[in-house]
């Protein structure tokens, strides 16, 4: 088995127009997905959301406000997943609520944790 990180991006455009009831459905969809993955064992850590505002330390140690990416490019959260290979992890990413919310999931394998 290998470990993967899911990086969630975007979905903000749809969010702005959401009604409270749709927000409820959104939160509920995420919570059931996280619960389901945890119970099944493939979700190692549901992870967390990331606030948009932050700072970036440059190579010369200067600090800039950032990351200033387009909101659909900005990483908005992450989760940790265990799967047999990249293909299997990608299939799991498809089951997340992110695509339906208008966002993307980037699936990346952790380099140092490949076991076999």
């Amino acid at each position, binding site marked *: 088995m290998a470990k993967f990180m899911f990086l969630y991006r975007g979905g903000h455009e749809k*969010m*702005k*127009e*959401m*009604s*409270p*009831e*749709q*927000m*409820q459905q*959104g*939160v*509920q969809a*995420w*919570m*059931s997905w*996280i*619960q389901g993955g945890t119970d099944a064992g493939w979700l190692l850590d*549901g*992870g*967390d*959301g990331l606030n948009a505002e932050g700072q970036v330390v440059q190579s010369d140690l200067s600090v800039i406000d950032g990351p200033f990416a387009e909101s659909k490019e900005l990483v*908005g*959260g992450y*989760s940790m997943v265990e799967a047999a290979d990249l293909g299997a992890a990608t299939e799991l990413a498809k089951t997340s*609520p992110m695509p339906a919310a208008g966002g993307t999931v980037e699936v990346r394998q952790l380099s140092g944790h490949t076991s076999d």
Partner: protein
Amino acid sequence: MSAEGVSTGATQLVEHFFRHESAKLIAVLTRAFGFSRLDLVEDKVQESMLAAMQAWRQRGVPTNPAGWIYRVARNRILDALRREEAHQRALALSHQTEADVELLVTEWLSEDQLPDSLLRMIFVCCHPALDRRSQIAMTLKILCGFSLAEIARGLLVSTEAAKKRVQRAKKTLAQQQVEIDLPSSAHLQARLSVVQEVLYLMFNEGYSTSQGIEPLREDICEEAARLCHLLCEHRAFSTPSTRALMALMLFHASRLEARVDSQGAVVLLADQDRSKWDRQLIAVADSWLERSKGESPSRFHLEAAIARVHCQADCVSSTDWGLIVRLYDRLLALNPSPLYILNRAVARGESGEVDAALADLESIRTGRAMSNYSLLDCAAGRLHELADNDAAAREAYTAALSAAVAPHEQALLRKKLEQLLPDEPA
């Protein structure tokens, strides 16, 4: 990190939590910062709920989710106010310090004080300076947490029209310099009857099947009943007519599920599976009606009594139509509405007076007071059927079909016409 930030890992929210939290916070915070800040408050509450969604979806719901959203909303509103000119800010804080306002808001959000803010907001949204449609739209927006798109879907208008209606209503209320107050005792009766009227119309918007069934519209029924219940729990507003309205809504609500078949098609009262009617709800409605005795019955009393007769009958033929006719007579004495005449005509027909009933319908037709003649032709069709005059029934249903707009109404009428086909000559 604050205690609220710690996840409990809870994966369930109370039903309609966001919707009701939105209404609650908008009512209390607008009361604190003044009606002129309604737009700011609405924006910040929306932002806070989005922040909650982002923060909770992966970590679960915090121990006190309502407190979490409130704190974020409060901070964002105060931040926005701090960016304003000093005199404007002073106005928003009504010469109080931020700490004073915070104390006040915390008190108003407490369980025993919350209804007061919600009721004040109901009276603002149902202000007599607004027309009925705007009052309904404002109530759905502010007190029920409906988005403009949802209001549009519920009221069968475009989102643009719903937006304009809400914006105009806010402008009118601002021009009236409304206070977020309860009506004075001198105006209480008149103001309360407007609120009752709005809630009943809102309920009917949700209940009506004229455009088919849409789950969101049942939410409108539920919200109207919830707000009516809020009135019922207040000493000054729990009048006999408010309680009768509560009973009326619950009698209707008991039949919500039976109005639709498994394919989502509308089922008429006569064809409904009465075992699907919610007996528990009917019992609750009964007890509200019993507690609604007053000096003279209102339209809500009489309409609730009619709904009760239907709820008590096992089938159409065992319904006490004579009693229904007498109740419509009394309603007509209060308000000579053509819709009451039409409904009484159907009841008269069912109780055996078909000729008198047909004459009633003719009087409405010549009076030209109805907007929906398809309804009139449907009623006439039913009366002719009762008189075993199939040819006349066919003619009436055909006329109704030519005016029917909604696909499910057309389907119902086509089915009627098929059943009435003349026997093939042997």
